[in-house]
């Protein structure tokens, strides 16, 4: 069963575009990456699924139920970490977390303290005295303390130092292994690549591609780097080659097509070194943007 099923979801803010005709499914137990530049509609999609805003047209279900009609009931099992974290400034961390826990029909006390300890959160500070990174940690604990079955992470990492980021990713993986489905929105491809099994790429409010991370990397381009002593750049100018460039003795290009053709071409000349590798998601991603 799909945990999230989005069906031609469209949102306009007055005349301004939010998202247009977005459809996708997230399967149970996967970590689904949602990537796109700022303003592409990532947050809009998440906020629609949480019924913080309402669609212009289209619909979505979570756990098989309409996300607006059954919103309150569904949110018992949803954790949400917004991209910008704001909490009641005058409250102490512990009181905010207790308030958060009081909404769920289960005892969250133990998990709350576990998470706070893991995130090294100072529980008796007031929210107004916390740095951005520490507020983010409050957000993480608040999103996870009720052991949600579905987790929305909206650009979660900015503000966390590298050590905390690693802990956080570890935490997300653990939650996922426990059975939680994760919807991970980000504009940083590296982290999506590290964490997710499938990704949807959104651009200007529309989904441009939904694919397995691996197929996305494999089916597409190879990145080729050749060390040569004396060779004309134009030698590699053949169908399937893009971004051909030369720095001193290094020629780089991307290739898409029959790999044998490139191998033959390489075999015919004298070269001192060659590297052929998968492009990073970043490079693939730029391709979708152009």
């Amino acid at each position, binding site marked *: 069963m799909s945990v999230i099923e989005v069906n031609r979801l469209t949102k306009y803010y007055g005349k301004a575009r939010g998202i247009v005709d977005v459809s996708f499914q997230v399967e149970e137990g996967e970590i689904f990456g949602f990537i796109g530049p700022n303003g592409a509609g990532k947050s809009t999609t998440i906020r629609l699924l*949480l019924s913080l*805003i309402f669609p212009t047209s289209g619909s979505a279900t979570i756990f098989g139920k309409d996300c607006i009609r059954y919103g309150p009931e569904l949110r018992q099992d949803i954790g949400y970490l917004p991209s910008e974290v704001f*909490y009641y400034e005058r409250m102490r961390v512990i009181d905010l977390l207790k308030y958060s826990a009081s909404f769920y029909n289960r005892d969250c006390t133990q998990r709350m303290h576990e998470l706070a300890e893991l995130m090294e959160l100072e529980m008796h500070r007031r929210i107004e005295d916390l740095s951005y990174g520490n507020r983010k940690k409050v957000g993480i604990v608040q999103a996870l303390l009720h052991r949600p079955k579905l987790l929305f992470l909206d650009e979660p990492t900015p503000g966390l130092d590298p050590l905390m980021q690693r802990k956080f990713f570890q935490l997300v993986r653990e939650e996922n292994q426990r059975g939680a489905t994760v919807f991970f929105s980000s504009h940083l491809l590296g982290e999506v690549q590290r964490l997710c099994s499938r990704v949807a790429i959104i651009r200007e409010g529309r989904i441009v591609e939904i694919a397995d991370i691996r197929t996305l990397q494999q089916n597409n381009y190879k990145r080729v780097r050749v060390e040569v002593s004396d060779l004309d750049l134009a030698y590699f100018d053949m169908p399937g080659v893009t971004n051909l460039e030369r720095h001193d003795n290094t020629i780089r290009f991307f290739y898409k097509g029959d790999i044998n053709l490139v191998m033959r071409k390489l075999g015919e000349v004298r070269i001192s070194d060659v590297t052929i590798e998968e492009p990073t998601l970043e490079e693939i991603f730029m391709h979708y943007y152009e």
Partner: protein
Amino acid sequence: MQKNIFQHEFRTHTRSVATWSAAVAALMLVYLSLFSSFSQQAELLNEMMANFPEELLLAFGLTGVNLATVLGYFGFVFLFVQICLAIQAANYGFSLVSVEEREWTADFLLSKPVGRSRILTSKLLAALSSLLITDIVVWIASLLFINLFKGDATYETRPLLLLLLSIVPFQLFFLAVGLVVSLMVKRIRSVTPYSMALGFGMYVLSVFGDLLGESVLERITPFKHFEPHYITRNGAYDLSLAWISIVVIMISLIGSYVLYTRRDIPAVV
């Protein structure tokens, strides 16, 4: 109603309730302590007032009012109490929902497993309870100070009680109207200008209504619907006007639920 939201909301009002209650009680203490000197020189006072320009008397609702009587004087004082209560209630109304959007905490609250109607009900009940505490302080202070400072003068209990009770629907009017207006605008950056405008605006309308003898204006403002001197003089509410307040409250509340359950919560851009 959701208990945890109610408690959370009620707590956020604590300081404000204490401040408003103390301020209104202090105001009554100061004014009512002057009553004995007013009543002792009643003739002089009424003579002096007769020489005041008609417009000035109208502005303070003092035409045909005998300040030498307990209820006449109290009705005059009560106008200032009403202005305070109106602004307090309008404050709560305007900020009830808008504060969460202004401080961006709406995402936190609305992503919890609770429907918007329940959130609004809990918030409304918390605000109402806070207002009711202020009202109770006003009631106690009124009875205490009147009896403390009335000297030999006497008064009728029924009109006084009616007047005191009128502050409940009176505050509800400003709470409900503030709330529905806050939901009709996109974003409220600061609550005070709005609540001042609504509170004083309604007061000014009632004054203009008197000055112009314009009865249309009377119909809009709760300062007329629950006019202290009418209540003390007649020992009854002006029901034809009081009803308007009740209807406005109902419409505003229903409108608030409709608007809030459909509202798009703005996000940080």
